[in-house]
């Protein structure tokens, strides 16, 4: 109990620090949300064009039949993973260059809370950004968002967050070892963009490709979020994705942590914790 409380306070210290840093870059903060709006506008016009044909696209029916809602959820959550991973990777890299990473490792904090705390702001802030997509979509572009099963949506938000954290910690291990060019952030973004069905329904893809896509957490988030937010689907309908994302997080976070700890151990041998 006492240890859980100490852990919470430690995580809060990370969050407080990162919120203050973000608040000091006010203009960037503003542009983040302006960017969200401009993406919404782009896809709104695309969907105006799609209106002529969307009735004939049978793959869209499952998700309510309207392209704008479909793509809004797709983009909101695909940029979630992408932005969270990028923000986190950048934070680790910067900590390495300034030496704060080394400074943190000389304290009595354990490595697990250190890395989890470092990722916290990235995942929470991008969650907010994702909500902004949905709010803009609903208020400005009149997209109907089903909130009847909001606890299910919230559950998926949480599961997406933990899955992203697992991937982020895994990527951070590569950054500690190789400094630049982690394959997780770049590779995953590329694959997800192709396979997860962000701007087109994944059902268009050949069957075997869809099965590959099923291994990507984003595919499950998108499928479930669309069903929940666009058609008000209850938990039973998206149960498979709950199981997949939970399993991904439960296995992924310990594996990613072990990899990260291994990477830091290697860097300790090489004396390269603070290398560029």
């Amino acid at each position, binding site marked *: 109990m006492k240890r859980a409380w100490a852990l919470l306070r*430690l995580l809060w210290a990370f969050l407080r620090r990162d919120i203050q840093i973000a608040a000091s870059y006010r203009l960037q903060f503003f542009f983040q949300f302006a960017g969200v709006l401009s993406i919404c506008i782009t896809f709104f016009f695309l969907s105006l064009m799609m209106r002529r044909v969307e009735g004939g696209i049978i793959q869209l029916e499952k998700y309510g039949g309207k392209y704008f809602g479909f793509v809004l959820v797709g983009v909101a959550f695909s940029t979630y993973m992408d932005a969270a991973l990028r923000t986190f990777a950048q934070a680790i890299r910067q900590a390495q260059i300034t030496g704060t990473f080394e400074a943190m490792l000389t304290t009595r904090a354990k490595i697990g809370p250190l890395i989890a705390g470092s990722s916290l702001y990235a995942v929470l802030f991008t969650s907010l950004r994702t909500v902004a997509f949905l709010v803009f979509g609903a208020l400005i572009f009149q997209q109907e968002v089903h909130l009847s099963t909001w606890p299910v949506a919230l559950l998926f938000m949480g599961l997406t967050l933990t899955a992203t954290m697992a991937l982020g910690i895994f990527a951070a291990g590569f950054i500690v070892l190789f400094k630049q060019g982690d394959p997780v952030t770049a590779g995953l973004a590329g694959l997800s963009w192709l396979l997860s069905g962000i701007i087109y329904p994944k059902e268009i893809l050949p069957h075997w490709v869809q099965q590959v896509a099923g291994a990507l957490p984003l595919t499950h988030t998108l499928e479930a979020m669309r069903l929940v937010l666009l058609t008000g689907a209850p938990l039973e309908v998206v149960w498979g994705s709950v199981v997949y994302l939970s399993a991904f997080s439960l296995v992924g976070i310990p594996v990613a942590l072990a990899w990260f700890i291994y990477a830091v151990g290697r860097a300790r041998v090489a004396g390269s914790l603070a290398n560029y």
Partner: protein
Amino acid sequence: MSAAVEIQGLHKSFRPRRSLRQWLQFWKGRPEVEALRGVDLVVQPGELVALLGPNGAGKTTLLKVLATLVTPSAGTVRVGGVDAIKDPDRARAQLGYVLAEERSFFWRISVRENLRFFAALQGLYGAEAARRVDEVAALLGLGDHLGRDFQDLSVGQRQRVAIARGLLPDPPVVLFDEATRSLDPGRAERVRRVIRELLVQRGKKAVIFATHDLAEARALADRVVVMAEGRIACQGLYAEIEPEIRRLFSAEAAAEDQALLRLFPDLAPAPGPEVRP
């Protein structure tokens, strides 16, 4: 009572990153840099050691091994009786480390927020952390700077924040790496006084202070441990081993002087290492 720091037979060799050429000529093997070649050192609680040596002697590597930032190739390291290689988490809890890198803070937040963040990493929160931050800031004359952004400080002020950070957890062992490098003489002397009188004499802490500056070593500590090329070359009272220290410092300098004089034969030979009064 166990020694505060106990190092035996410590070796560390680094394998630097290979250049593209070395990488292609892999059959030639990989060059190694031996930073530590068998170091033995015992420091008792309440003892202040000046670790003196020219650039590249291995001082930083030795401190980083103690702080568990670098894993040694061979040897044993105990901090406060805890094996720092087998149980680095517990060893670190005994230890404050003042990095040579005074940039290692979050530049866009205030000094106070920086110190509070590192206090949290040391397990200090809320009012307790606030009190401790004010204390260490007062020790280093940073009281007026707590509200300023870290990026607005001068290099010397940043260095004092780094020293304050190392003292936050009030640990039994404190390591300083060139901690007065960028301070003006008055402030450097005040930091030495804080170390000597508050940390060591009153606090009974064990302190290792790495420096390349002969005058600083002399001003700081009774016990001087001299490192050269990864080994402990000699140790004792500064006054007693001064000739040996001068010899060590000038040996390397002489070789470099020769190279310089070959290029510019008309230059006068350099005087030996200087010790200001």
